[in-house]
């Protein structure tokens, strides 16, 4: 479905105020005030377009959005709402808004260390310390066709470091020659885009594309849906030209490996439900490959949640919202978790480190027995 963004001024006039977006918005479902849904945010954007001053209350509502894309899917006037939200954040950034919010810390980390946590670059190698098998050429190996782009969250958060460990061991087992950018990896820029700081993100994009090309790679694999979406869909726009790299999400890569029978998962007599990450599903259109991966595991029963694929509920983890309003993230995650529990599954699997974090936190807070896994981790357990 084609969507339009002709600029804040025009799109906010085009909005019909029909509220289709409101009906699907996870933030509105959690908070309930008209101001908290996309229709309310359009009203705020209209004010911005008219040059009216925006208060902190307005700013807060702009940042209380996971950029999940659900509103864009249902909009009958075909407003590319997510793109509009980014423009609106750009408008706020230009007015110095970031400094008023915790977002400032993330921005400063990105400027100082080129990652979201502010860790020193060497910490990007920590996940490699306890791999079950040694993988040669894991860092910046020249003349390697495939680069695995690890991403800040998976690389730097202890809770998710199992993901790069799992994926790199899967690739090694499938005898894929690959490398990573090691400690030279930098954030893909997605959090900066989410703050409306497109210029800085463009700079990061240029540096990274050059680095991958230095290695001589032609394929880039990302396990993080946001990195994947940014590399695949946003970089050509930021760079003003195609980068010439083939971008694959890990789930696509694994699906290919399974089709080619380069992996041999062992039977798992268990019931699994699958959560579509917004940046992989709605925002990138990838729905089938992760399901193919799960269905390739003998004995596994895949049960869908009430809302899935294009209609999947958001986990709450996107759009930088965790730094702005963690309680809201938790409330949104609880709602998704409830749908997962309704399926009676033992495992909730998702191909995203951020969805895994938010849903696993919700599962812990709700004291459920549901085990939350990233897809790569889950597959690695079966090999």
């Amino acid at each position, binding site marked *: 479905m084609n969507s339009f963004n002709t600029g804040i001024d025009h799109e906010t006039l085009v909005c019909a105020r029909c509220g289709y977006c409101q009906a699907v918005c996870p933030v509105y479902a959690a908070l*309930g005030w*008209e101001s908290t849904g996309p229709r309310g945010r359009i009203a705020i954007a209209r004010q911005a377009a008219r040059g009216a001053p925006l208060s902190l209350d307005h700013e807060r509502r702009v940042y209380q959005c996971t950029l999940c894309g659900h509103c864009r899917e249902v909009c009958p006037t075909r407003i590319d709402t997510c793109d509009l939200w980014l423009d609106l954040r750009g408008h706020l950034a230009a007015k110095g808004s970031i400094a008023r919010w915790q977002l400032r810390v993330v921005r400063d980390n990105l400027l100082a260390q080129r990652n979201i946590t502010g860790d020193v670059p060497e910490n990007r190698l920590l996940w490699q310390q306890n791999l079950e098998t040694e993988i040669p050429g894991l860092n910046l190996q020249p003349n390697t066709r495939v680069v695995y782009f690890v991403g800040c969250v998976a690389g730097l958060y202890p809770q998710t470091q199992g993901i790069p460990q799992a994926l790199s061991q899967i690739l090694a087992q499938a005898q894929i020659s690959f490398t990573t950018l090691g400690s030279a990896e930098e954030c893909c820029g997605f959090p900066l885009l989410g703050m409306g700081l497109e210029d800085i993100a463009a700079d990061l994009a240029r540096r990274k594309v050059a680095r991958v090309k230095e290695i001589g790679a032609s394929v880039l694999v990302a396990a993080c849906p946001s990195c994947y979406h940014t590399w695949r869909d946003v970089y050509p726009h930021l760079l003003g030209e195609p980068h010439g790299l083939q971008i694959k999400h890990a789930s696509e890569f694994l699906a290919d490996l399974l089709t080619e029978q380069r992996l041999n998962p062992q039977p798992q007599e268990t019931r699994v439900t699958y959560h579509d990450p917004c940046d992989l599903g709605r925002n990138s259109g990838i729905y089938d490959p992760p399901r193919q991966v799960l269905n390739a595991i003998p004995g596994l029963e895949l049960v869908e949640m009430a809302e899935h694929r294009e209609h999947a509920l958001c986990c709450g983890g996107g759009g930088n919202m965790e730094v702005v*309003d963690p309680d809201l993230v938790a409330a949104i995650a609880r709602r998704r978790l409830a749908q997962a529990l309704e399926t009676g599954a033992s495992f909730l699997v998702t191909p995203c480190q951020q969805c895994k974090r938010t849903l696993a936190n919700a599962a812990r807070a709700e004291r459920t027995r549901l085990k939350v896994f990233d897809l790569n981790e889950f597959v690695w357990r079966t090999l």
Partner: protein
Amino acid sequence: MQLIEETRMSQIAPPRFPKLAASLGERYTESDFERAFYRRDLASVPRVLEAMLARTTPHAVARPQNAEEVAALVQYAHAHHIPITPRAAATTVYWNSVPTRGGIVVDLNALRGVVSIDEEHLTATVQSATRWSELETALNRRGYATLSYPSSAPSATIGGWVNMEGHGIGSLKYGALTQQLQRLEIVLPNGEIFQATPESNPLLSWFVRAEGTLGIVTEIELAIRAKPEAIGNHWLAFSDVTALQRALVALATATPTPYSIHFSDAAHLRLLRDAGFETCQVFRNLTGLEPDTPQFQVLVTFDGSAQQVAAGAQTLKEVVARCAGETLDASLANLEWMERFASLRLKRAGPTLLGAEAWLPLNKLADYAADLARLTGAQRVPIATYGAVVTPTMTTVMSVFPSDESRTINYILDLSLTKKIYDVAFRHGGRPYGIGFWNAPYLHRAFASRELAERIARKRQLDPLNIMNPDKAYKPAFLLSPIFFDLGMDTLALARRAWSANR
């Protein structure tokens, strides 16, 4: 909320309605910031007009989550004579859910969810702000379906449609919503929780089409059906409006009865193209659409058993042959069916759309269209028309044209054409589809005198203090009294005509 520089987000002032603030807690606000979001519906009204006519910003907004909370709130409002505006998805255009005297907006959206499905008696019980799309999805999962729904189903609520006209997709086959209602739980203007049924006193029918003026519906029990086994969509074209009307009349009374009939004219397609949808299937397949070709498209949908759907296709074939129609590609028909909730696509041709929706005898459609064509010519405005046949003899007809609310003077001139379109409908036995605030000047044309008198009597009986959604549905605001309204709008229309002739 992690704000680096802690700032006071809103002034701490004692609440205007302290009891409500205490009882509803976080689901109640008097904040300037939040209240400002409740002063609009779909209508784009120039600020000057808005300021002249009403106080659209409420003093407070409350989000009760059950009938008891609604009842307590209404009792309080009743005791203190505070105006109340019930608001659900706010997908209406006549300020139906916009306050006119401030007061309290009761945002009903926390009353959301399917309560139960009775498979034996084929009924569903829902909270009133459940979306039609939510109910349909929940029913489909269990093998059931709604009988009908509005073409705003993705957001419109069941309580909202009960309070409005209740005709839409499926009405032709299954009748108006009112015929499907078994029970309404409603909080009356004095705060009493009342169960309205077809036998109760007052009757359930009193609360249908009441536009939120007789109480707040909190729960609804309505008829459902087994999910149809099959669906068949057909897209037809007619080269003139007489043929179109003949075909619609024949189809509306055909056996089997179509589930839905939706029609639109060539101007509608042209507006879609102007809106930037020229790459869509519709245009690729309808080549040869000349600017002045009076051409009409009809989407006819049959559903039910596979046999019924096949029988529908046969009936349709005969009608098309008899009325010199043409059958278009079946895949287009399916595509159009999938777009049945997206009529607002047209808005991209605006950015504002103005127009009027009327309830019109089906056998007057051709006269209406011819008359409207004269208006189009005189005012030099591209008016697009579409509609749905909703009973064997009646259709809704929506005629819209692009405008731009950001050009205030032109926009105010354009507003006058909405009256001109209604005038066309009145000349052919039509009436406005929905009243609210803005259509109140047409009340005497919308209802027969006896019917209007009866409605006013019900209002006096149930809401003598006139706290429940005042200024809607019974009497126009002073400045909208027919005498001022007609004169003002007609003068503006004349000015617009002169202006457009000189351009």
